[in-house]
Each structure stands twice: as C-alpha cells, then as structure tokens.
C-alpha cells in the first residue's frame, strides 16, 4: 500500500498541482492513507459521515473520508475529527454574515494539528459552497524569494511573480465553478495594450494573471479586492472564506533582501500588503480562518506559540478582535483512534508496536503529540 507521509508543506516552496477539483492544498496537508471503502465496517475509529456539516461531538476522534471527487491522491484521504475544528465549524454555522467577518485563529504548540483543523474547516466551507481563498503557507511569501520585481503599480512595493502565479493557478483549480459567475466591477489596466474590462468574469482575470507573469501579483491584489468588495453585497450569492496558514508571517520579518542588501519589510511586498487588507474585518459576508505557525516562521523562538508572541505587536493590533481557538495534543480517545487507524492501514509493521507495551512506549515517546506520533510510526 503506497502512502504519502504528511508532508511538511510549510517547508515546501512550491505547491503541487493536482488534477483534482478540490483545493490542491489538501495534497500536501493530508495524511494520505489508503482506504478501500468498507461497506460494513464497524470500526471504532472511523465514521461514515462524509459531510463535515454533520460532524458533531460524537464523531470526535474518528476519521472521516474525503470523497475522491474532492481529493485525488494515491488513495483516499482521511481526516480526524477534532474538537477545535468542530468548534469553528459550529461558529461558522451560526454566524451572522451581514456583520463584518469574524476572525478565527488556531494556535497551539508545534505539531498539534492546527493546519489539519484548518483543512477540516476549509472542507466544510467547500461543501457548503463557499468561495475559498486559501493560502497554504504565508511564510512562503516572505522567504526564499527567487525573483523580486519592483511593482508597476506602486514603485515602493515589490512583486513576487512566481509565488503569485502558483497561487493563482491553485485558486483557479479550487474555485473552478465560481470563476465564470463572478463579474468584475472595475476596469484594470495592466499595460498600455492590455486591460480587463469591468463586467468580465473573474476567470478571465485569473487567466490574465497566469499568462502574464509580470503582472501576476497585481492580479492577485485585484482578485482579492474584487472578492472583498463583492462578498458583502446583498446581490452576491456566495460567501467568502479566507483561510491563511501561518498568518504570523504577514506581520513578522522577512529574509528577502533588496539589491542593496537591506531587508525587505513584509509591508513592501504586494502579496502581503493585499492579504493584509483582506485580513481586516471591514468586509462582511464571510469568515477568516487562520493558523499561527512557529515552524516556518522567521526569527521566532521555538518555544513561542501564543498569539501574542507569534503575531507581534503590530499583528496583534491588526488582528485584534479575533477568536482564538487552542489546538491541544491528542486526548486518550483520539490517540487510541489514531493508533487503531495505523494498525488498520498496516502502517505499524514492527511486531512490538502492536502490543500493549509497545503502545505505552509510543505514548511515552511522543507524549500525545500528533506530528511526533506520526513521525515515530513512520519508520516502525
């Protein structure tokens, strides 16, 4: 059985393009394990409930399978239902969307499953038919930039064409069916000869950005602006979900350097600037779900995990009224179900690991930390 490890996508600079209808961010984020649908399975750790909207407290600790229409990897994908994600989903269900957008921040120590909770929430939004604006890792935008162009729009800012094009491609794949429906309200002029008229669809704008690499960052900015303006309008029929992973990158420091070796402030990057505008809750008709992440963050101590530490003063002030959701380590039940899942998938090959003592050893060594547990079982 071929299996993908849960890839440390934060460290991957490029996003894999997957020919799937759903958000390709899932490819990197899922613990892709094979599941042949068992029609009559009475397993404790699995639930048949495929729709995140129907998940409730009694499904906590169980794995649910994403349908292959949504997610095409080697085999099917499973996500564990956990309390923090359920909490946010319940808020999303009950929120009033005529009010300004609510901000949810998942935080926790390293490896507890913040990103997976984000994915679960995004899946919920997708199944509800929202337009998902998903940034897999904001840290990628502030480090290891290969090309930096001075922006055509504003001379003090810098463009990142590569990152912008990759993001646009993913956005296109993710929200395929939304693109023809949304019409632009303004006219955007790219060069002397090229411009996008008001009234043309979002799809065209995105195509423009993908084909014309130089102006892709501005296209991104335009897309974000359009969506922000349109989502709150009474005439719009969609809700906007902004999901950003590693949101502390937007207000942190960056490692990109200008030609004269001075560091670029994240504010001077077009992508970051536009994303920050989105993060402000001056628009309505949607929700902002974010995650803090220390793993990819720059110049942050390893022990920092609270929002205040990671966001910094500026970040905290701009994100200020947000709903923090803490993501803890596995509980007993969750650990149990994960263990059973690995056993079921034959992931634990070592005979000792299948015994009771082996289980106790595993608990001791990983201390209920999901990522640590996964890494441990990876070579068992």
């Amino acid at each position: 059985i071929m299996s993908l490890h849960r890839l440390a996508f934060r460290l991957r600079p490029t996003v894999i393009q997957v020919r799937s209808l759903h958000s390709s961010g899932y490819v990197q984020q899922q613990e892709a394990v094979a599941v042949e649908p068992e029609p009559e399975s009475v397993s404790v750790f699995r639930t048949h409930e495929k729709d995140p909207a129907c998940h409730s407290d009694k499904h906590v600790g169980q794995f649910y399978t994403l349908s292959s229409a949504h997610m095409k990897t080697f085999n099917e994908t499973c996500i564990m239902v956990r309390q923090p994600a359920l909490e946010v989903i319940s808020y999303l269900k009950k929120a009033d969307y005529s009010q300004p957008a609510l901000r949810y921040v998942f935080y926790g120590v390293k490896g507890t499953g913040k990103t997976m909770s984000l994915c679960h929430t995004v899946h919920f939004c997708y199944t509800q038919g929202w337009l998902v604006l998903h940034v897999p890792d904001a840290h990628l935008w502030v480090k290891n930039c290969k090309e930096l162009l001075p922006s055509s729009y504003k001379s003090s800012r810098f463009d990142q064409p590569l990152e912008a094009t990759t993001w646009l491609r993913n956005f296109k794949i993710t929200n395929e069916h939304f693109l023809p429906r949304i019409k632009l309200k303004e006219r955007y002029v790219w060069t002397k000869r090229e411009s996008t008229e008001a009234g043309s669809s979002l799809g065209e704008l995105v195509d423009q950005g993908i084909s014309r690499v130089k102006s892709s960052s501005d296209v991104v900015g335009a897309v974000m602006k359009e969506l922000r303006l349109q989502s709150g309008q009474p005439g719009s029929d969609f809700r906007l979900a902004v999901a950003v992973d590693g949101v502390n990158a937007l207000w942190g420091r960056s490692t990109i350097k200008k030609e004269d070796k001075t560091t670029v402030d994240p504010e001077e990057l077009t992508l970051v600037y536009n994303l920050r505008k989105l993060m402000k809750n001056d628009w309505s008709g949607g929700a902002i779900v974010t995650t803090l992440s220390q793993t990819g963050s720059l110049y942050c101590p390893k022990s920092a995990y609270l929002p205040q530490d990671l966001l910094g003063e500026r970040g905290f002030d701009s994100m200020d009224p947000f709903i923090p959701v803490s993501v803890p380590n596995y509980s007993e039940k969750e650990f149990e179900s994960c263990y059973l899942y690995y056993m079921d998938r034959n992931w634990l090959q070592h005979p000792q690991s299948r015994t009771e003592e082996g289980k106790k050893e595993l608990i001791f060594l990983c201390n209920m930390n999901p990522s640590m547990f996964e890494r441990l079982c990876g070579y068992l």
Partner: protein
Amino acid sequence: MINVPPLTPHRELETTGRNYFSWRAGSRLWRKNGANTVYHRPDDSPPRGKLTTRPYRLARAGSRCPFTLINLPVIPFQLYQTKQGNNNILTDKFTLISARKVRALALGHKIICSGDVHQLPPLTRLSSPKMAANSARVVGSLLRKSVNFVSSTRPVTLQFCRRICGTPALHRKNLGATGPEKFTAEFIQKQVEEFEIGKRHLANMMGEDPENFTQEDIDRSIAYLFPSGLFEKSARPLMKHPVEIFPKQRAVQWGPDGRPFHFLFYTGKQSYYSLMHDLYGRVLKVEKHQDQLRAKGLFPTEPKQIALGTSRWLTKEELEALLVEPISSQDYECFIQLMERLLTMPCCSLEQQFVMNHRRQLEAQSMHQVVPPLQKDDAGVDFSTAEGRRKTSKGSVVVRDCGAGRLTVNGQDYLHYFSVLQDREQLMFPLQFCGLLGRFDLDCSVSGGGRSSQAGALRLAISRALLSFLSQSEGEAMRQAGLLTPDPRVRERKKPGQEGARRKFTWKKR
C-alpha cells in the same frame, strides 16, 4: 592525631614569592647561586651548608626521577627535617631536605609503588643481595637518623644518598639482561624488620599508638602524608608488608652437598607432582574406605556429598600462586579432573577439608545500592527522589505514584526539552524495563553538560528512584541490566605535545 597545619607548597616560600611547583619542572627551575639564591626558611636566615644553596627540583607525583629508574610518586611538598630531633615533622623551623633525600626517606620507609617492585633490582644489581641488604640497611639507617637525630649525620647521609641514587653503573647496565630478581630469605627478613620499624616511626609521626597500628591506619596515614591525585589506584604511594610486595620465591631446594630435599625435584615441577601424588593417595584411601564399608555391609545408600555451596575451583593463576611454581594448562586440567573424580566417589566427605582448601567462594553479588526511601506527600501519594550524574550533568528526579505518565523537565514539557528521540528513549528505558510505563509521574530537573549527558544523568536518577518501588529481585535485574551503574567515562584531558587527548600532531618527515 596531631593537628597538622595544612600543607601548602607555598607556605614556606611566601617570602620568596616564587612558585616551584609548575609541573614542567625543567631547566627553568635551576637557578644560579648568588643574587637569585632562594631562602627557604621563614625567618629568612641564610641557607646552611651545601644542602640548601641550590633549589631543588621537586618533581610532580608520578614523574620519573632523573637519576634512577625508579618511578616514584614524589611528595609534592617539601619534607622537612627537625633540627632538634623532634618527632613532629611538620611544624615550623625546618630545613630543607633534598629531593633525593626525600626519595631515600621514602625508600627507607618502603614507601614505594607496587609497580616498582621489579625495579628494586637496580639497587641490588650492583651487588649481590647482600649488598642490596646493605644499601637497604643504609637507607634504613638514614631514615632513622634523618628523623630522629641531629644534623651531624647529614653529610654522611648525603653521600649515601648519592651512592644509591646516582651511580653511573646504573646507567650502563642493561636491565633486561637480568632474569627475574631473586631475594634471599635474609633480604626479605631485613625488609620485614625495616617495615616494622618504619611502621613504628609512622605511628609516632602521626601521634598514634605504635603498638596498635594496623594496616588500615598505615594506608590512611600514607594517603594523608603523600596525597596523590592520580586516577590509577595502584600508582599511588603505598606502604605494605614485604610479604605482600615481594613475590613469593622458593628457597634453595638442595642442601650443601647439592642433593635436593624433595624426592620429586628432578621432575621439574615438584610441588605440582607432589600435590597430584597426595591427591591420588587420598583417592585410593577413599576407595579403600569404601571397600571396607562394603565388606562390613555398612555401605551408605545415600552418599553424603560434600557441601560445595557457591564455590569454585582454584583458577590456574591461583594454583600457581599456591604452589609457587608455574604449571601448564594441561597440568591444571589433570588436577581438576582428578578433583572431580574424587568428588564423584560416595565417601568423599572424608576429604572435605582437603577439597575445600582448593576451592574459593564466589563473591556474593550483593546490591550495594542505597535504595532511596519511599516518602508520602500531603495528598497521600507515594513519591521518592533520587539523583544521577553523567559527565558534567547532574539531574534529580521526583517519581510520584500518581498513574498519569506525565513528565516535566525543568518546568518544560519533555517533548520540547528533549527534542531528539534518542534522549526520550533513554528516559523511557528504566520504566520500560520494569514495565511501569504509564504508572508514574516524573518531575525532573537537570543542569550542566550536553543533551546526551543530561539524558543519561536523568536515566540514572530515574532508575535509582524506581528502586524504592520495586522488590529486591527486580532491583537486581535492573543492576544487571546496567541501569544503576554510573557511567565513569569523562572527557580525557588534552596532553601537551599532542593536539588532543589521543590525536597527535601531524607527523612531518622534515
């Protein structure tokens, strides 16, 4: 015990302000006479006589003396001689004794390394053992004089010193050419006498009763008078009875007419063959006894076996030491086989004493571990504390019997403190070994060292703390698993002339 002031090397040299105790005792220490003459006495009076004009090099413990091949641990301070013949050797108003004299003193007291036994022959080699005895006697007399008598004998003793220590003949002769050293009975006896006298002197020096001065007292006093920082215990100064120091040697085996005493002398291995002869005689005796019993009809149906207990046969080395002659391994096997044959016989209990003479008890592997006491805290939860060390880290652990399986290290989660799996595995090992993984709560604190040594220190501490929750046998199992053994490995020092502890500088041909 007299109240001896602490011996510091600088005590008498405070007036001079110079330090002679740099370990690179070399040409730097040799100074010319005249303006740089060093006065060695606290009252700053000029040095008396030839003895003290030249500052003497006192080598560090364990260095090689330049004059003889004796590798003596020389005293790292200056031993003084009384003016008035007090026994109190360590108070003020002393004069300096030369380093050679100190060595001679040591020789007189037989304060030598056990490793030096084989190098005593240089003394005796210039002469027959008689001469050795003479020189030893001289040294002994030197000792007596030096300790108790007036300085009038000093020039004499100096000469004697020189003869012993600095003869050119010593340099020329080849040590390897001589066979194993031979000590005559008189020589050994002389050594014993001098040892006794030296013991009494030592007792007087330390202010204790000469009559009841035991070997432990001697060891203690020597360790006090000649403090040594050497790691190797056998390299430190020791003073033991000559019987323990000189290897046992056989007396002359033949009479004045050349006729050997023992009937088996011409076999070459007379003690061994006589032992085998004796043993076989006993076997025959037992068989004869058995035949007699059978004839009378009193043959015991349940043969009474010799209670061997936890004993083992003598090893080959021990047998050689017993017989004072070398034996080959085939001889040894023959001996063991014959002994075993004796044991198989039903009536062998007749020879119990003989058999037990040739067996040794196995050392009881008892647990020397001090089990930390099990305490109860306010909530009624049992807990115990223990400490452990490894390299330079020190760790202490409080093990509570709560049943949660949580660990805290220095207040942090152990997953964050020990991010490497290997360290966590080290912590897990004692608990896993005893099968108590989920049962205890551990509260650890650790400092010093690196990540691996901190993990090792905590592991030792956890194993020790767990002892109080376990039975004796489980504790023994832990000991055998090596969980309770402190790891003695420390960083080896870097030596001069080399780049590291073992690594030498790159060798360049030119």
